[in-house]
């Protein structure tokens, strides 16, 4: 194999790069405007209420945060598990992980009731709160992945490469455990309160993160007019197939366990049978679009090396993953909390016993999309400033 050269991302003409940046910048500006609108008026202008307290911004934020830790996997495979085909992708993997986490956190922050109190969130800790732990895990993730990137790029730091690689790998497992436990530790709501949430979020992160990685890798190499070999993409594609299958498996175990427990029959029939939009999102969004079709695209011999099929499969994994988080976050809240077990609520001014109504509003949607744009902007700026992308990722043996 010829020596790997890394080079900053130049997209042929400056116009091509800056037009892309202008587009991303516009989306980010709109998102900031939407956040200002929501904060200025208060959350009543959103679809959220005292019944559905976490709405679309949380779906976007959790989706991006989960994907962020997964995006780091490619780097981990290169350093922790010693995969030579993955090693040249490590830098980009780390940069993408940082970008996605930043995008998710901006959305989460701007959806707080008091985003101006960020400094309080950073200085007042209740160590029994998994949320507080997450703040530490997120900050630490930036630091460790930043060091990891440095160890990969600076030859003088090369001796730290493996230990930092290990640290980053364990940190990302802790981070996703923390994210899953936000729900796993919620005893009050029947849709949550399950230890399997943490490992399920980890496997979800493997899948979403890799899908994000594949799409952005293909896009960046098209944008920068660089060579991307089929062999490496095929490896990534096969790995994605395993992760998609694993996500389906975890969904199956999670729901089967709940189906066994009589107490949880209500919430299960809500998600699986009669939950209206949430049932549709589960079966059509999560299972069909996010699982079955991508598996077909990935493993069918008909699409062996078809790049569009790999891109389409990755995109569908992301769409399905988005629905999966939507069903968990919003479906889980919409199902009425069992405040009075064994009783039917005849009257309540606070919507006890009724399915929570939630329709996402436009500003929430714009803020969430802005989070993705922030992630992509950071990646584009980072790739332009640092030597992140190999000049060519052509298959070994093709070059002289």
């Amino acid at each position, binding site marked *: 194999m010829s020596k790997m050269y890394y080079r900053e991302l130049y997209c042929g003409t400056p116009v091509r790069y800056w037009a892309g940046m202008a587009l991303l910048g516009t989306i980010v500006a709109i998102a900031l405007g939407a956040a200002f609108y929501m*904060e200025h*008026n*208060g*959350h*009543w202008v959103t679809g959220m*209420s*005292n*019944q559905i*307290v*976490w709405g679309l911004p949380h779906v976007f934020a959790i989706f991006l945060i989960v994907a962020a830790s997964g995006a780091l996997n490619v780097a981990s495979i290169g350093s922790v598990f010693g995969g030579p085909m993955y090693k040249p992708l490590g830098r980009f993997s780390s940069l993408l992980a940082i970008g996605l986490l930043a995008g998710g956190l901006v959305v989460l922050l701007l959806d*707080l*009731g*008091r*985003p101006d*109190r*960020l400094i*309080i*969130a950073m200085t*007042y*800790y*209740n160590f*029994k*709160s*998994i*949320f*507080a732990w*997450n*703040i530490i895990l997120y900050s630490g993730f930036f630091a460790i992945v930043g060091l990891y990137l440095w160890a990969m790029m600076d030859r003088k730091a090369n001796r730290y490469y493996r230990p930092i690689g290990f640290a980053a790998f364990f940190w990302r497992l802790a981070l996703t455990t923390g994210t899953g436990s*936000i729900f796993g*530790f*919620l*005893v*009050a*709501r029947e849709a949550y309160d399950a230890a399997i949430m943490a490992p399920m979020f980890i496997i979800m992160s493997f899948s979403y993160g890799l899908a994000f990685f594949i799409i952005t890798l293909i896009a960046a190499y098209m944008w920068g007019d660089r060579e991307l070999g089929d062999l490496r993409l095929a490896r990534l594609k096969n790995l994605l197939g395993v992760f998609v299958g694993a996500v389906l498996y975890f969904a199956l175990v999670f729901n089967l366990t709940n189906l066994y427990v009589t107490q949880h029959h209500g919430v299960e029939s809500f998600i699986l049978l009669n939950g209206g939009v949430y049932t549709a999102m589960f079966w059509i969004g999560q299972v069909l679009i996010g699982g079955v079709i991508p598996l077909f695209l990935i493993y069918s011999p008909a699409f062996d090396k078809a790049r569009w099929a790999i891109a389409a499969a990755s995109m569908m994994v992301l769409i399905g993953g988005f629905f999966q988080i939507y069903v968990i976050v919003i479906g889980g*809240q919409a199902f009425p*909390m*069992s*405040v*009075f*077990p*064994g*009783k*039917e*609520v*005849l*009257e*309540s*001014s*606070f*919507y*006890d016993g009724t399915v929570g*109504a939630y329709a996402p509003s436009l500003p929430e949607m714009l803020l969430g999309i802005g989070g993705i744009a922030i992630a992509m902007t950071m990646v584009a700026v980072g790739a332009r400033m640092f030597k992140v992308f190999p000049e060519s990722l052509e298959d070994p043996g093709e070059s002289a």
Partner: protein
Amino acid sequence: MSVKNDQPDMNRRKFVGTTVAAAGAVVVAPGVLLHTVAGADPESQGASAKHRWGMLIDANKCAEGCSACVDACNSEHGLTGHGRPATDAQWIRAVKLKDNSTGHINRLVMMCQHCEHPPCVDVCPTGASFKRTDGIVLVDRHICIGCRYCMMACPYKARSFVHEDLEDQSVNAPRGKGCVEGCTMCVHRIDRGETVTACQEACHDTGHGAIVFGDLKDPDSEISQALKSQNSRQIRADLKLNTGVRYSNL
């Protein structure tokens, strides 16, 4: 002529010592004085673990169509709605229930249950949700960041998020847009030495007397006597949160 001497100058040392002591006294004394004066005021003595404030609600006495306690709570704490029930704050609410197997119909009021082990306090990232030593669960509006995790965690749907601008606030309960809030057990009254909450007072005035409020740790209090003499239960007792609010005839 100077005397070469490596012994320290005792006079100087003494002077420095006296000065520091005097300066220290000047700095500390007013604080001590103020603290003593402030401590003399019952309103600032703070909560005491000698009490645990609680309520007993008799579901049989909670009358159909009555909203006296809800109205009293709203006016006591300045909870003015905007005609948007999904987002307006509700600290106390009436709920009508029918037993699934027997068909028995009940009515009761729900509010923060002031748990001994409150899930909202466990999950709050900043410690804004906290429990006083006298058992009252509150939100510190100065450090609440509005993440709403406590609302996800509360098994009683007892909390509200302030969804819009506030006007005409009551001095009894300063509120904040973008923060979470809930029943304070009229902590402003308790800290003044009163032992009657707004909801209990209103319920009593209508003649229903469905709410008894008092000190669970005082064996002679009305609530302790009532809990001793009749059967009562906690809502979602399975969660073992040891609520401060109990229900009878439910």
